[in-house]
């Protein structure tokens, strides 16, 4: 199948005769995998580069143009046991990566300046109490200025830019006192140096910048990593479409390469990756991912098809109206926009703290200056002391307190199978008091499963599974999967609308509609007992069996629900599915609050209603119909099988078949927020001790530097405790 993928969209020219391809690789776990892949792929002739990135789980390949078919790489990786898929980094991912590397560059410059200025500052500090000559001290001060001024002008730009933006919007953020502190300290130091004074604050100013940049970089790094993982997930879901190159010829291409106006083929069993209108063909389509309705509807020429719908019986030719990220019902996108806007009003813990902190710092500094003036000090001395206050209250610990905890906690979350999508995810998830689950694909597994496997003899099951491999119908696929079938039976014919049939041991063998297999009676019996199931009948000679296929509830869903209820959260279920199905699931899971046949608008309305009553809702869902609710909820999570759109608006994505990561995410987030609060308190206590000293005029650059470093280290060490989160049972 892989060999038909059209790679041209992903190939890049990296030299005059070199081509380059980036692959997202699934299954890389350690250095062993890295060595194995690199050794194997670089043995292919004319491959000039095969390099695995162990952090991002990606593989970069370069080869002589025209010498190798890129499909060979994917094939080779599949032989080695790794699933790979070409990817194109999303715009957001590239931006995050550029920002992280820009911050690292500025941090490097600031760190260089700090080291060199310290070298000059030590002799000045010790010289001031010893035998240093005035000219020597001035020389050292001028040298410091020479190093620090350009370094600060370059590396403090993120703070200046952010402070300017805040002031222009007539607000104050943490960067305003930082910027004022830096500029004042530098200006004053320059003045002091010019007037041959004993103290200059160059070292303190540049160290402040370096520590704060370290905090910013940590923060940015979390985002860069999760974006990269999210990009991999999107690529590995391998959403492809079958495109008509001419009227006759078809080719499998990645969805990223489909443009509006293209004509694609949708075959039975395929999930549409595009929005469009049916040109020809007739089929039943399952729109459960969009509407939550599990009963199929009929699609004929002229019908609209949406991304995420499953084609069940016949093939369709569809003209694409939107592909990739544009595939949306316009109503969903409108709702989404509104919901995202209301979300942006949320203030993160760090921002809330800095809102209180910034005016306080300014007031204290101003008060100190006027106090000293009133007490009879000269203007010069008063300003020097005020600057010392600004520097010592440097929100250094504050700037590190939250990003450091975030970095450590996001690593712990990753270990529990949760990828963060948004910077404020931890704080939001920690605050929730209600969890709303969608049913289809969230509480249940996205794929169908055989419900009555126990009542079917093993040899029959086995044979039916092998026969089912010849059909692309989702119900048949579920039988094949449940039977663990590997080898398809030879000479199987498909009878449109009925099923598949063939001959085994001289006996007629069929899998399909109960009426076609002569098994109406047992099928009706099953449907009466379990109206939610889909049935498929199997006939081999005289044996007749009926398979009941239905969505299976996630293996640990009941445990997770009761665990959430135990920690005081109210669990609720909103589903677009019909009432009996929702009722049955709610009873199995012990969920007391539930509603069925809910539209996307209803879901949003319910979340808004809860928000008005002061509840903070965690929405967990996977479908397109959940996307607006995911965006509108206080916090949101999606399973990795969710639609691309749902994943991109959710605060976090969880991996695997189990639901336990949802519970782990809440526990780890709560612990992380506790640590953030502790860190803020550490910063407050440090200030309570240091500020009076500074106000009293007792602070020299040495004390300022030592105090600043100590408080930063303390905060970092405390953040590391987020790693010691016990795994929930």
């Amino acid at each position, binding site marked *: 199948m892989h060999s038909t993928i059209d790679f041209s969209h992903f190939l890049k020219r990296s030299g005059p005769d070199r081509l380059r391809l980036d692959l997202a690789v699934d299954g890389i776990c350690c250095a062993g995998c*890295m060595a194995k892949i690199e050794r194997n792929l670089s043995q292919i002739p004319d*491959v000039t*580069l095969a390099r695995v990135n162990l952090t991002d789980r990606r593989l*970069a390949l370069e080869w002589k143009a025209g010498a190798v078919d890129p499909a060979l790489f994917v094939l080779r990786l599949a032989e080695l046991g790794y699933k790979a898929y070409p990817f194109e980094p999303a715009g957001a991912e590239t931006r995050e990566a*550029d920002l992280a590397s820009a911050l690292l560059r500025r941090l490097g410059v600031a760190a260089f300046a700090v080291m*060199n200025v310290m070298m000059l500052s030590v002799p000045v500090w010790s010289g001031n109490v010893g035998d240093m000559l005035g000219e020597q001290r001035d020389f050292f001060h001028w040298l410091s200025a020479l190093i620090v001024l350009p370094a600060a002008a370059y590396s403090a730009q993120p703070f200046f830019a952010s402070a300017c933006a805040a002031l222009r919007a007539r607000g104050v953020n943490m960067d305003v006192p930082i910027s004022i502190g830096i500029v004042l300290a530098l200006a004053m130091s320059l003045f002091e140096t010019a007037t041959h004074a004993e103290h200059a604050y160059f070292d303190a100013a540049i160290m402040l910048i370096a520590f704060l940049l370290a905090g910013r970089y940590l923060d940015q790094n979390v985002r860069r990593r999760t974006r990269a993982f999210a990009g991999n997930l999107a690529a590995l879901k391998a959403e492809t479409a079958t495109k008509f190159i001419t009227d006759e010829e078809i080719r499998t291409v990645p969805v990223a390469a489909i443009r509006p106006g293209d004509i694609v083929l949708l075959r039975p069993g395929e999930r549409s990756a595009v929005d469009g209108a049916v040109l020809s063909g007739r089929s039943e389509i399952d729109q459960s991912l969009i509407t939550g309705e599990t009963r199929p509807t009929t699609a004929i020429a002229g019908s609209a098809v949406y991304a995420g719908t499953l084609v069940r019986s016949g093939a369709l030719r569809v003209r694409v109206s939107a592909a990739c990220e544009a595939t949306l019902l316009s109503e969903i996108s409108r709702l989404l926009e509104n919901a995202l806007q209301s979300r942006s009003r949320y203030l993160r813990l760090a921002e809330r703290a800095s809102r209180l902190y910034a005016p306080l710092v300014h007031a204290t500094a101003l008060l100190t200056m006027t106090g000293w003036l009133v007490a009879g000090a000269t203007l010069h001395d008063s300003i020097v002391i005020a600057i010392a206050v600004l520097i010592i209250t440097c929100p250094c610990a504050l700037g590190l307190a939250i990003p450091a905890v975030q970095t450590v906690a996001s690593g712990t979350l990753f270990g529990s199978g949760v990828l963060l999508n948004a910077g404020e995810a931890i704080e939001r998830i920690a605050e929730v008091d209600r969890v709303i689950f969608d049913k289809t694909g969230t509480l249940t597994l996205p794929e169908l499963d055989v419900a009555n496997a126990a009542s079917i003899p093993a040899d029959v099951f086995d044979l039916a599974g092998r026969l089912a491999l010849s059909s692309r119908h989702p119900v048949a696929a579920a039988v094949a999967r449940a039977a663990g079938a590997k080898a398809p039976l030879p000479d199987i014919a498909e009878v449109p609308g009925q099923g598949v049939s063939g001959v085994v041991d001289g006996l007629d063998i069929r899998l399909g509609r109960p009426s076609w297999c002569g098994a109406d009676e047992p099928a009706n019996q099953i449907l009466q007992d379990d109206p939610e199931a889909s049935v498929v009948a199997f006939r081999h000679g005289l044996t007749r069996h009926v398979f009941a296929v239905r969505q299976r509830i996630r293996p640990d869903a009941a445990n997770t629900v009761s665990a959430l209820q135990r920690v005081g959260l109210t669990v609720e279920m909103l589903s677009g599915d019909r009432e009996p199905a929702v009722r049955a699931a709610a009873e199995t899971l012990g969920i007391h609050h539930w509603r069925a046949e809910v539209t996307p608008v209803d879901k949003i309305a319910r979340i808004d209603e809860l928000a008005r009553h002061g509840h903070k809702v965690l929405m967990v869902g996977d479908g397109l119909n959940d996307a607006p609710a995911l965006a509108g909820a206080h916090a949101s999570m999606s399973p990795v099988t969710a639609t691309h759109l749902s994943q991109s608006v959710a605060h976090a994505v969880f991996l695997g078949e189990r639901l336990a990561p949802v519970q782990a995410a809440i526990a780890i987030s709560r612990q992380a927020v506790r640590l953030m609060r502790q860190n803020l308190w550490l910063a407050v206590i440090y200030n309570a001790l240091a500020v009076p000293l500074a106000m009293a005029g007792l602070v020299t650059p040495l004390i300022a530097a030592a105090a600043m470093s100590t408080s930063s280290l303390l905060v970092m060490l405390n953040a590391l405790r987020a790693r010691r989160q016990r795994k929930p049972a």
Partner: protein
Amino acid sequence: MEVLLYLVPLALVLGALGLAAFLWSLKNGQYDDLDGAAWRAIADDEPAETSSTAAPPASAQH
């Protein structure tokens, strides 16, 4: 004390060299995969690179 006139600029030049090396390695994408780099150092047999351009250019990396 005249020795300072040599030593201080010398120290600064050395520091600047270090900074230049850092910026160069950053530009070459050497900080893109710190996990992998840690393991590469202790790998038994380095996979045969047929080209000397071991590190992919940063511009193409993203």
